């Protein structure tokens, strides 16, 4: 039998039609490799998650005239009202307090919005996950990106605040960019972890939303760190304060607390690692849990 013949025989076999059980299967990819592929493939599909995030916002405000700027307006009213009353309550100057609460609430909304929506990362995408094969991480990128879009709508009031209250603008402002970047990475691991756990345990979302509500009061968002002098050092170690601080302080033209950057970086590394382990182990179960 010539080599050519052997080849054509093999080709004929390869093209053989029908249904059988004779083929030898290649080795399956490991969970780790699949998880890494998922994260990378999801990230490169920016055109999917950016469009889905944009569509989410469009749907949320369908038919409304102001659209996402409703939140901006709500914030404006809340910040003005809280600024006027709490400045008196805390005996602080409104000129410094109003910008403080403005930046604080905006950054807090980004963080709390991401955490709350993280719980629904996969459950909200139930239809898609059960019908179409798509990297799971696409949904996590979508949650973070959606909250970034909302944040972008909300910060339009910041320049007015800066001008109106003569907030010093200097090179500190540049720190906002790495700050937001790290907060986004932070949101990403939270989305993967909370999103995954919430598909399995449906009690997680209400628990998280309660915790976030309590944290709003426990974290120096609308009250200044200096208001509690004797606990100041301890309060600065609250990770949620650190997360807010790295973006808020630069917006106010001051340096963040020395502990803030290390705490945020630590959270991203430790949280990211735990979330990754969870994702590697349970990624393929998400479609079953949902």
């Amino acid at each position, binding site marked *: 039998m010539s080599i050519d013949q052997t080849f054509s025989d093999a080709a004929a076999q390869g093209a*053989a039609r029908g249904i059988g*059980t004779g083929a030898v299967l290649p080795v399956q990819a490991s969970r780790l490799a699949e998880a890494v592929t998922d994260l990378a493939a999801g990230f490169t599909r920016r055109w*999917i998650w950016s469009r889905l995030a944009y569509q989410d916002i469009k749907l949320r405000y369908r038919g409304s005239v102001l659209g996402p700027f409703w939140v901006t307006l709500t914030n404006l009213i809340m910040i003005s009202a809280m600024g006027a009353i709490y400045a008196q309550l805390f005996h602080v100057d409104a000129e410094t307090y109003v910008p403080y609460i403005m930046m604080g609430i905006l950054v807090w909304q980004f963080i709390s919005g991401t955490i709350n929506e993280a719980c629904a990362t996969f459950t909200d995408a139930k239809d898609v996950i059960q019908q179409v094969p798509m990297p799971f991480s696409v949904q996590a990128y979508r949650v973070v990106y959606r909250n970034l879009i909302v944040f972008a709508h909300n910060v339009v009031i910041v320049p007015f605040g800066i001008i109106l209250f003569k907030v010093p603008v200097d090179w500190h402002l540049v720190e906002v960019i790495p700050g937001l970047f790290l907060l986004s990475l932070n949101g990403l691991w939270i989305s993967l972890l909370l999103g995954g756990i919430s598909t399995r345990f449906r009690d997680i979302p209400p628990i998280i939303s309660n915790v976030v509500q309590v944290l709003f009061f426990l974290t120096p968002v609308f009250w200044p760190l200096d208001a509690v002098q004797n606990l100041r050092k301890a309060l600065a170690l609250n990770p949620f304060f650190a997360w807010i601080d790295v973006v808020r302080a630069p917006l106010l033209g001051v340096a963040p607390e020395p502990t803030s950057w290390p705490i945020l970086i630590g959270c991203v590394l430790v949280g990211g690692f735990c979330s990754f382990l969870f994702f590697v182990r349970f990624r393929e179960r998400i479609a079953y849990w949902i």
Partner: protein
Amino acid sequence: MASINLRDVSVEFPIYQLGARSLKKMLISGGTRGNLARDAHDRVMVRALHDISFDIANGERLGLIGANGAGKTTLLKVLAGIYKPTQGRIHIAGHTTALINASVGLNQDATGRENIILRGLYMDIHPRQMRDRIEQVAEFTELGTYLDMPVRTYSSGMMVRLAFAVSTCIRPEILILDEWLAAGDAQFLAKAQRRMEEFVEHSSILVLASHSFELIEQWCRVAVYLKDGGIEAMGAVEDVVARYKEDVAGGD
């Protein structure tokens, strides 16, 4: 070269909403044909598929038949890569498009044209690439001016046309279809079949699940008859359909 290989694939769904107590009740009451089991953690497991093995080569058209609850849709989802088998191994070579539900990815308030782009997203097609094909898709659907109307004004048959046209516009190597396709009218089905033949000629694989023997015999060359999550028969489509008809006629 597209191919599908399954070896001893099993899929078990954990049901968390039921306590272990209600499991006992269910097991005693029977009637579920032994698809329920209990795992090591005392959870209720529904065994949707068990010990499924087969190979499908390039250019093959596979039909899945079986009663309701036999595992057809679950098997399609395994083939589509949505469910990873809880046991066994699977190997899929080739880009896969799954059409398990005609309305998935369709935004009821967006127009037909917008939905073509949107559905493309779910099929991993870049909007830019999709825009080039929009006219071709529009032509195939024959929806005319309806394409500029919101999808909520469509009949289910029209949605099927739209979904089918988008899904076959890129000629995936493996196309997985659930029985919703039957919602199309005869004229559309004839047109769809022509496209499907052309599509399979380009050495791709079609997997179709349906209750309609007519559709299966017309579109497929080989078939798998699923019963209670296992393979009851497989082989040439005529033989398998005959076997299924025999079973149905004979009763349980």
